[in-house]
């Protein structure tokens, strides 16, 4: 399935959002391998303070039409495999909306999910509306913990028309992990094939800050 309309406050001239919606998303806990430096005397020095951690995320896509298949191939060509970075909505990172803040409509309260710990500071918030296949994107300023049940998300712009039990997601910056894209076709009947692709993405927090 493809997102057909994006309402965003992203201001970078070159922003590029991956529009294909996965059928299955999976976090791989193996974080990006940060090099350890072994010093001259043999002491091991961990240098991973220099780079922030980026998740590896695996998603499975069913390409039910030529339009979706063409979109994926063309997107892969545009970013030249694992070279170009882009914004990726992670539909698995659930942020469950609870209520608006009565005093400020750029702030709202969500159910506690340790979001304030995993927030790297650059991510955006994404609301996918399945009725009109649209995507709303807002930049997150900060996330604070209220108590053991709720957290507060502070945005830079307003986001409206959210209802209770709406799932919100994070928009992260990343690239394809591999330089190749494999598409499996189960049948060749005209316009009736079932194609699927399993893609791995890696988060690039340092580059996301710059966007």
């Amino acid at each position: 399935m493809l997102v057909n309309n994006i309402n965003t406050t992203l201001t970078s001239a070159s922003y590029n959002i991956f529009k294909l919606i996965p059928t299955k998303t999976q976090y791989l806990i193996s974080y990006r391998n940060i090099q350890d430096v072994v010093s001259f005397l043999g002491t091991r020095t961990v240098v991973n303070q220099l780079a922030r951690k980026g998740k590896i995320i695996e998603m499975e896509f069913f390409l039910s039409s030529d339009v979706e298949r063409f979109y994926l191939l063309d997107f892969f060509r545009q970013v030249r495999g694992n070279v170009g970075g882009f914004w990726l909505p992670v539909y698995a990172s659930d942020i469950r909306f609870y209520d608006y803040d009565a005093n400020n409509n750029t702030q709202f309260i969500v159910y506690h999910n340790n979001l304030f710990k995993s927030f790297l500071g650059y991510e955006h918030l994404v609301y996918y509306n399945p009725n009109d296949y649209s995507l709303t994107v807002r930049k997150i300023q900060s996330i604070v913990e209220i108590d053991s049940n709720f957290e507060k998300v502070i945005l830079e712009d307003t986001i409206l028309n959210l209802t209770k039990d709406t799932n919100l997601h994070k928009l992260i910056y990343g690239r394809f992990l591999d330089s190749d894209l494999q598409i499996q076709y189960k049948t060749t009947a005209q316009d009736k094939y079932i194609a699927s692709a399993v893609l791995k993405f890696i988060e690039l927090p340092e580059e996301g800050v710059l966007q």
Partner: protein
Amino acid sequence: MNTINYLNIGNIINYSNNIFEFNLNKANILNNIKYTYNINAKYYTIRRFKNVAGIEIFFEQFWINPSYIDFGIITKEVNQNFILQNRFVFFDKKIITIDKIEEIGVSTETIFPNILNKVFYPYEYVNMTLNIPINGDIKVNGEFIFNDTTQSITNSFSYSLIRAVIIPFIPDEYSEIVKYLTSISRTRTLKEQRRPISDLPLLEITYNKKLRESDLDKFINIVEYGQGKVLVCPITSENFTPSSTLNSNQIIVNQNLNNYFFIDYVNYLIIIDEQNQDNYFFSEITSVDKTTNTIYIKNIINKTFNKPIIFLANLFMYKDFNIEQQDYKTYNMTLGVSSYVGK
């Protein structure tokens, strides 16, 4: 041809009757990454002896380089260069004279007009052009006479060019891998530096097909003949149905060509009858009109189809082929091919 690499002894692949065929180490030379050349060289040794260590040394040679080329020569006339060379170790009065020339499959006035009775002195070579017609394989047979101060030996040589093999079939299942060559390195501050190495993607396709016992021989023959050669295979994810009758050199399809990825990359097209897959038609694409969903091809379609499916096709290098028996009288065939795609 960009480079011709001279050969070393360790690569002998065929040895009989004083003819040594060598396989180049750098057999696959990518020229602008559009076509894959498979270059072998052949030389004809006239005299060999063993040194004190018992190792055979060849010292009087006549080279044809390359002697065998697989190249994208399917529907075009191509001018192919090759070299004939007299390579001697010792500069003596060792002369080679071309005595006899026989051309098989060469259509027009093309080659060897100047080298009949030509005398090759040591290390002298001739760079020649072979005009390859549209249809058929080409073979050139000949004889040369080796003249020494003491003797003269007659030997024969051959030079062949073999066309790409078309494999028209509709698989049951298949997978495509689109791959970009990239380079990723890290800076001192662990930031990534990434760059594409090639603008053209590498396309790898693996076809799977269930075969009946009656189809078995056909596919084994096709793939054994195609082994090591360039194959023309359908890109089965890019298929169309015609909206008009197929009797001219233009095909109007039902699909919106803007949605098709490889149509910007490939040059060829195969029409296969779904009901009788032995009935197929192959041609080069001359142009594509995406506004009217029309594909213009070079040749006029001269076959009739009950249920035609139009596939885009490309030149692929043979990678692997496997047939295994699944159950009684049913076999599972896997064919893997790969190629850079690009016009």
